[in-house]
């Protein structure tokens, strides 16, 4: 983002500064601030992390340490729709791998990647706690259960 002018950068950082201003300057608010900032930007760009470090009076390395520790935080742009494929025990024994393969084929990306048009990000998660319906995926906040590879195209089409 080196090409941004100063004015543009200030505009870009306005939402994060707004978020920071609602919290006390304490370490304990780092995770909620990061969560809100990611909600706003969709991911956590470096400039935003720098702003948060300054805003909460923490070192950038400390902020970076937390961001990289938790799987919820992302430093790359993400798709409009987030697909989480459950790889939990129940899903594993009921064919979760085949569901993952079907989604990868359909979207042409691997787990952890985002489609070029930024429509979908595909992730695997350890368990989404809907084991009774295994195998399960979550698209954004919707849970889809009892899946077979054949059902995948229909589900993805709903989000396009």
């Amino acid at each position, binding site marked *: 983002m080196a090409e941004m002018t100063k004015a543009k950068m200030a505009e870009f950082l306005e939402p994060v500064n707004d978020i920071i201003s609602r919290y006390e300057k*304490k*370490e*304990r*608010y*780092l*995770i*909620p601030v*990061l*969560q809100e900032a990611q909600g706003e930007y969709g991911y956590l760009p470096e400039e935003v992390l720098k702003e948060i470090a300054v805003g909460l009076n923490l070192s950038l390395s400390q902020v970076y*340490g*937390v961001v990289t*520790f*938790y*799987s*919820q*935080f992302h430093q790359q742009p993400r798709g409009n729709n987030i697909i*989480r494929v459950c*790889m*939990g*025990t*129940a899903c*594993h*024994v*009921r064919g979760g791998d*085949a569901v993952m*393969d079907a989604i990868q084929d359909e979207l042409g990306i691997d787990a952890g990647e985002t489609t070029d048009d930024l429509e979908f990000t595909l992730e695997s*998660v*350890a*368990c*989404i*706690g*809907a*084991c*009774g*319906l*295994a195998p*399960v995926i*979550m698209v954004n*906040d*919707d*849970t*889809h*259960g*009892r899946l077979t*590879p054949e059902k995948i195209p229909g589900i993805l089409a709903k989000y396009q």
Partner: protein
Amino acid sequence: MNDSIYRSHVLVCTGTGCVSSGAKNLKTTLEEELADKDLSSEIKIVETGCHGFCEKGPIMIVYPEGVFYCEVSEDDVAEVVEEHLLKGRTVERLLFREPMTEEQIPSYKDIDFYKKQQRIALANCGKIDPEDIDEYIALGGYEAAGEVLTNMSSQEVIDEIKNSGLRGRGGGGFPTGLKWQFAKNSDSDKKYVICNADEGDPGAFMDRSILEGDPHKVIEGMLIAAYAIGADEGYVYVRAEYPLAITRLEKAIEDSEKYGLLGDNIFSSGFNFKLHIKKGAGAFVCGEETALMASIEGKRGMPTPRPPYPAVRGLFGKPTNINNVETLANIPFIITEGSDEFSKIGTENSSGTKVFALTGKINNTGLVEVPMGTTLKEVIYEIGGGLGAGKKFKAVQTGGPSGGCLPEKYLDLPIDYDSLLDAGTMMGSGGMVVMDEDSCMVDVARFFLNFTQSESCGKCTPCREGTKRMLEILNRITSGDGKDGDIELLEELGHHIKSTSLCGLGQSAPNPVLSTIRYFRDEYEAHIHDDNCPAGVCKELSSAYVIDEEACIGCGKCAKVCPVDAISGEIKSAFVIDADICIACGACEPECPVDAISQG
């Protein structure tokens, strides 16, 4: 509060399971249909939490009759309204059928899945509207907190919990009363209580269902714990992956504050308690209590050595008591019914009930709550309805990534904390995954180790490096490159990791491997010495499928499902599978109407 009297209540489950099966649309259609038939003032729709029977969702129960309908779709609504709600006739085709006997069961309480259960923690789940505090209060909610705050000293409360024999339901099984006593004994101007709802075990979802179905019970449990140890502030640390649980908990906290059940001077007792929700950020290790506290403090969620225990030096350096969701959900019952009543349930050293998330290759998946001491067989066959047709039981995995797999000879084992430990597994948070002959035990061990390895926080070398080395060996074995001595090496590494890791994650990570070696060593040996995966799961070791030419009727169904186009042939003449292309996925086998396909 709504004072109208309705002649019927229709309970629609809106737990995560049923919602993903279409419960929201079902409810909307039902509302429209009732409005259409002018019944909205006579019949009330109640959105409830999870009934535990997620397999059969969406679930709908009609009271006062208590008729249990399952797998109800929008298209069924008109018939239910017309037949049941107007004409009083049960819609038989929507009733539950017992998988073993095919018998239709109209009433909720007569279904085997529920009949054998004893529900304390889950008592209200599926019965009340979790977003309506009045419904919780109507069923005796906050009575225990009232009793505690107005009539009991903090020591009396702790004695009562100690006497109940309640042990931590999050997995460790530490006596809850003793934990509270330690926190009470610590002198400090400030103390905290934390509810650990960072349910990260793959295969467990009871904490989620309790928070979604009965959030007030957890709040009440926390309020009592806070009073007992002298804390005025608390946190519920809940996974961000549980959006519905968070929403319902937020609403519940807001309502409790409005009713004066949280905040200052609760029940005019002079006792204050403030409760916050803290959303996790996706790290399994944060289920470990010291890591969880680090996370609330805004740090990387890495465990720290104990002592000092949280009861002495916990959150922000202050004495802290941490209990799991299910543990807290047992507290109100112990207070209102008495600790003797509670300790009568279960076994001598493990009193009360335990909720299990019953999943895997079983007919009735879902959440079940049974007295401690119930045997695995009762849970799997009587409540769970047994395995799918023609499938043979191979193992049951308990305790998630910290636990192990038990073979058939343990089916009569009464389940409690100690019996499971003796058998080489553990209670853990209560996941129970049933596996049949199609599950490969080496693959299952690899699956869990892959999970713990990627979730290891990296602080201790044995856990960080050791799990990686074990995983490499398992990957090698499952891909056909196993060597002599691999099994012994896995055992040696496993024992070292267990004895030298700092926290529960590392101390239990090797369990799935060690227990499968203990009970299914022959499967490991078959992989290593015979290049054979007996269950046919490990692709590199599996031989191609073949079609019996004599039996094949040439329908071509198998060719349609083959993901790699290995099957060819003309309709009405025998099809063939190209063994070089076949990846032995097994997709074709169930498609064949005449069972002509088998693994070569």
